[in-house]
């Protein structure tokens, strides 16, 4: 299928790109790797009059800052994130999360910033063919929602399927955003609006420039799992990410962050389970209780053929294993870093 004619801008810097977006408004879209935008343009989900391509900009290599945090250029390819010695050493959860995204060629094209800023998806929205003539849904400006006909106008239950976002939120990462008013900082968590219509809290001319992952505290442990059927080139039924720290010289948990992605319009935190864990002993009983609490408090949307009850049960079983992994790492029972665990 041949794409329609669109204008092309190739800025020489991110500031220039932001200026283009400001000038062109809603009619322009930014393409970094293009792996989310161009398939969307093929099925006419997106029809920007201008594509602002960041293809000429090369990312700065990841660096360790004086405070131990890791700064990663938003244009770093996911394959480079997964293979970077520095990131594998300092934030192995992020390297693992980047290595399970989509497929090998896509990981070499797609960027970390683009993975965060990808659009939400739903089967109806993203599996349209060019021979189908259906009235547009809410997200495309129409007056109907096909998968959820009872949804009121303006409610779009499309799902944010990023694999790296839950890991970055669990690691309490921050992003540097540049726009018309200069640069500002925000937590990755606050980047997401929770609305399927407009999933990102970014103004029209704002671009994510860098992601900064803070240095982990003492006795830090992590666990990550993408629940998927094939283990390659697919969206997760859910993406589970856990970061916890153990209290000094005890078997108890000091603080925990549990983030579940690919179940709602944004990655969600299981706040009640986090509270239940903090101050509690990291034993089998607590972990089973916390896993049940996670499954109870989340409210997954059915997506990509997975039902609500399947996703909930799947998370209840697998988050317990992820919590166990994180607890073992925090308590020092497991010195291994970055072992792959998917499926």
């Amino acid at each position, binding site marked *: 299928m041949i794409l*329609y004619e669109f*204008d092309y801008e*190739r800025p020489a810097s991110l500031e220039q790109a932001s200026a283009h977006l400001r000038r062109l408004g809603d009619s322009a879209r930014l393409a970094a790797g293009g792996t989310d935008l*161009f398939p969307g343009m*093929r099925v006419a989900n997106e029809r920007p009059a201008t594509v602002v391509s960041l293809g*000429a900009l090369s990312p700065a290599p990841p660096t360790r800052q004086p405070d131990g945090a890791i700064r990663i250029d938003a244009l770093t390819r996911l394959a480079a994130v997964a293979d970077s010695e520095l990131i594998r050493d300092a934030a192995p959860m992020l390297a693992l999360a980047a290595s399970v995204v989509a497929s090998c*060629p896509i990981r070499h094209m797609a960027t970390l910033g683009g993975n965060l800023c990808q659009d939400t998806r739903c089967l109806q929205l993203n599996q349209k063919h060019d021979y189908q003539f259906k009235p547009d849904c809410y997200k495309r400006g129409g007056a109907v929602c096909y998968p959820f006909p009872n949804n009121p106008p303006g409610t779009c239950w499309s799902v944010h399927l990023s694999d790296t976002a839950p890991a970055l939120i669990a690691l309490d990462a921050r992003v540097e955003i540049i726009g018309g008013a200069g640069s500002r900082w925000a937590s990755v968590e606050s980047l997401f609006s929770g609305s399927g219509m407009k999933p990102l809290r970014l103004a029209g001319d704002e671009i994510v420039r860098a992601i900064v992952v803070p240095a982990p505290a003492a006795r830090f442990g992590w666990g990550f799992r993408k629940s998927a059927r094939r283990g390659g080139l697919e969206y997760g039924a859910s993406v589970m990410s856990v970061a916890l720290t153990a209290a000094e010289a005890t078997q108890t948990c000091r603080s925990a962050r549990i983030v579940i992605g690919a179940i709602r319009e944004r990655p969600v935190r299981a706040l009640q389970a986090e509270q239940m864990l903090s101050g509690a002993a990291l034993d089998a009983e607590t972990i089973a209780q916390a896993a049940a609490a996670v499954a109870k408090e989340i409210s997954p949307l059915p997506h990509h053929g997975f039902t609500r009850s399947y996703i909930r049960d799947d998370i209840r079983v697998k988050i317990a294993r992820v919590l166990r992994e994180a607890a073992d790492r925090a308590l020092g029972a497991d010195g291994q870093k970055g072992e792959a665990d998917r499926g």
Partner: protein
Amino acid sequence: MDNALRIKGTRSQVVEICVNDEWHEVSVRPRHMLVEVLREMIGLTGTKDGCEQGACGACTVLIEGAPALSCMTLAVDCEGKHVRTVEGLAPDGRVSPIQQAFLDQGAVQCGFCTPGMLMSITSLLERNPRPTVPEIKKALDGNLCRCTGYNAIVDAVLQASGQGVEPLMK
């Protein structure tokens, strides 16, 4: 390549792309994807145009040594870059070791996925000359073979990397 560029959608721009060590000047519009330029303007039809949405991997080429899906890469973005296609694996008409391994292992059925597979494997072997079976499968997770002949393809990679597989057809 750090110069800013602006093209109207209905205008063409001449860009230079190095394909298989040969520079080509092609006149492209913004909407032209690299696969269209390779197949229709340069005439290298080895690269296949499959799903056009990044799911099948038949259009995989190497851009600056890294595997990329040419159906999702704007041709203008490839200005000044080195692209390798399946034709570049056999520059003088002699098959490369990985192509010979595909023949020996019967890893070609209908052949539509083969050019993409070969490019993904070429990139893998350049990064990792002796990959394990899980590493091979991970590197090929973006290339679909609808004849489902994956085992023979994995065997072919093992043979090409000198890891002892009995040739099927010799």
